[in-house]
């Protein structure tokens, strides 16, 4: 077992992430990625906007 072994040969395989039992787990994995990305992006944006707003008010 090597450290960097690409597990999926095509884009659709990576999307579906079919396991050996035949179930597609891609929907769960990608949904979590979407949620984490959204949460982090919204938080960063929110604080950047709020800091800009309050800095303008103080000025």
């Amino acid at each position, binding site marked *: 077992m090597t450290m960097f072994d690409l597990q999926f040969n095509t884009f659709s395989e990576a999307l579906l992430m079919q396991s*050996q039992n035949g*179930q597609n787990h891609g929907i769960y994995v990608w949904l979590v990625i979407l949620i984490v990305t959204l949460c982090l992006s919204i938080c960063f944006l929110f604080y950047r906007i709020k800091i800009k707003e309050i800095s303008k008010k103080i000025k």
Partner: protein
Amino acid sequence: MFQVNRAYPYIFYLSLAIYLFSVFWGLFLTPEDFVQGNSYRIIYLHVPASFISQSLYLAMAIASAVYLIWKVKLSVYLVRSIAPIGAMTTFIALISGSIWGIPTWGTWWVWDARIVSTLILFIMYLGLISLHDSFNNNEKADKFLSILVLVGSVNIPIIKMSVEWWSTLHQPASVTISEKPAIDLVMLYPLFGSIIGFTGLVTCLVILSSKLQILKREKNKSWVNDYV
């Protein structure tokens, strides 16, 4: 604040690079788990969020103690700044755990000790934010917030030990300080990377949140005018 401002972009871009690389490594380059199949790849997003949600509360508890003992104003600003970030990471931990539970346990929710104690942590974060914002007097709000954070810190060892003390559906920790990891090194390295990267990103969020808090609370001071 000036020094933190200078370090911020370095911390942000380095953490982002580590996090993206580790998550990519975990998602596409590690082998499938023989029991859970590919659903186990959620570990690279779930574990960092779960680890950080508890660590942030510990940081809040330490800062609260500092405020109550030495009355350092900055420490209570930090407590108030961490709370929303803690709520966000706990939310990610709960949601990702629930989604992971569907293919693994056959259900998205069980009233299991680990999950319930994490839900309590999430409610505590929200409660602390609402409590602090409901006061008109800032000093009173800071004091109550610090006391409540310290009282609530009892939940952290409960979350940590819940999988040992009770029979839970949630699996025990795969990595401990004292024992050999229960997870293969091929899967473990990207997990460490994702924890480090996520910790760095959350640190950046805490820096931004603290900056906002300081500007809000000190807006009438002359040094703030000079700063902005």
